[in-house]
């Protein structure tokens, strides 16, 4: 007699300029196996049209929908957090504040901070390698009364060549139709207190490496893992920055295996 697999609650967190919609292939795959899935729009993302990114000055404000979800969970419920790209920083905020409510956090070609440097450290290293040419005409603009915010709005070419280069053309089209300006919150994160060992540091982490990622390169992903080791590392071959479009079935399979491993 085999024990029935435990039903999980996956919380899916999108990356910059995207929204809950980017999980549209993954969500039904996980739900088909009986799991509960919440795909969130972070502030000023997706169809959260109550705010523009220029209204959002901190990563905590940006991550508020995730924090509200974590607050609302029953005491006995643990979730599997899944963060893509910049979503990794929202995961870290939730992990630091609600470590007891998370069975494992999965960083999908995402920024994965450590506890020894400021929260912006891994992002600053990424930004330092980005030339103006590398942004391929994406719009980077300062905002806020002190110009300390930096909004980013991906260009068509940037999305086509650096994010979605191996993904179906219709998903690139979808991304182009739904993208919105986002922010990297680098200055604000650089002034934040470090993530704590007892909070963030106590939650198991899995990292999914996307080997053909043209924006957060495999090298940078591996550097982040080396800088702050994950409990588990999984590699996705022939996968661009958008595994939820490029390899949704395989990504779902990995998420399920990770969840089973840590529950």
């Amino acid at each position, binding site marked *: 007699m085999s024990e029935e697999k435990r039903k999980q609650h996956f919380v899916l967190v999108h990356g910059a300029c995207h929204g*809950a919609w980017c999980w549209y292939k993954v*969500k039904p795959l996980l739900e088909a196996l009986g799991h509960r899935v919440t795909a969130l*729009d972070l502030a000023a993302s997706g*169809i959260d049209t109550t705010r523009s990114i220029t209204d959002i000055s901190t990563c905590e404000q940006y991550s508020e929908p995730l924090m509200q979800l974590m607050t609302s969970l029953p005491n006995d419920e643990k979730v599997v957090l899944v963060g893509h790209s910049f979503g990794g920083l929202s995961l870290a905020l939730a992990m630091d504040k609600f470590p007891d409510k998370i069975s494992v956090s999965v960083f999908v070609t995402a920024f994965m901070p450590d506890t020894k440097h400021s929260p912006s450290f891994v992002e600053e290293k990424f930004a330092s390698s980005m030339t103006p040419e590398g942004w391929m005409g994406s719009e980077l603009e300062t905002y806020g009364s002190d110009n300390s915010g930096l909004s980013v709005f991906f260009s068509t070419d940037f999305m086509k060549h650096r994010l979605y280069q191996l993904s179906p053309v*219709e998903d690139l089209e979808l991304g182009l139709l*739904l993208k919105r300006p986002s922010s990297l919150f680098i200055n604000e994160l650089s002034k934040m207190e470090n993530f704590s060992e007892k909070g963030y540091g106590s939650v198991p982490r899995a990292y999914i490496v996307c080997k053909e990622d043209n924006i957060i390169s495999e090298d940078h992903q591996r550097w982040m893992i080396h800088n702050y080791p994950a409990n588990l590392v999984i590699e996705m071959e022939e996968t661009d920055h958008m595994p939820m479009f490029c390899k949704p079935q395989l990504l779902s399979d990995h998420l399920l295996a990770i969840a089973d491993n840590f529950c």
Partner: protein
Amino acid sequence: MKHYVLVHGGCHGAWCWYKVKPMLEHSGHRVTVFDLTAHGVNMSRVEDIQTLEDFAKPLLEVLESFGSDDKVVLVAHSLGGIPAALAADMFPSKISVAVFVTSFMPDTTNPPSYVFEKFLGSITEEERMDFELGSYGTDDHPLKTAFLGPNYLKNMYLLSPIEDYELAKMLMRVTPAITSNLTGTKSLTAQGYGSISRVYIVCGEDKGIRVDFQRWMIENSPVKEVMEIKDADHMPMFSKPHELCDRLLKIADKYP
């Protein structure tokens, strides 16, 4: 090369054309899609929509931006048929043909809201499920909203891939109900809207706008041609995208 302008339906956005747009472009055509006011990622709120022109504004701006020699194939889905008809009334010389894809299609004798109000009146309690009507506006100018709950939406997406249904659930926004308070009581004109070529594409398995209602609208306001996609649900761009593109290509060839 033709130029298609694709208009989405209520509660939806430009995103619903994400399969059709690259297919038409792959066939060498130019395609323009956009969010109507307060839909998709358009930053307006439904409360900003006080008139049909307010709702149609992004479409009107698109057509206004084209040169006087440009002619487009205007394609409208569902509730998008009414703002599209208004646009055709205002810019008839810029439209080679208007294609109504299982769409509300006004006539030139009643207010543009007539067909939609008739549809609202025909929804049975059983069919209504979680289709929600709300209110906004003022006592002097009362307006209504409509929202498609997940069960009503599922009926519209019955033959569509489940991932497209999930996508829709994540992107639904409140739409204005197109009542005569929104449109005003004047009909569209015979010399404007009434002068353009129109084609209707019937979707045979539509559980939202049923075939008999589609047929009634065609009888009420006759078109140049009726085409059919037999096994399409309300969302042919998801349930039968190749068949929809095939018909759109044929129509563009036929109506220069």
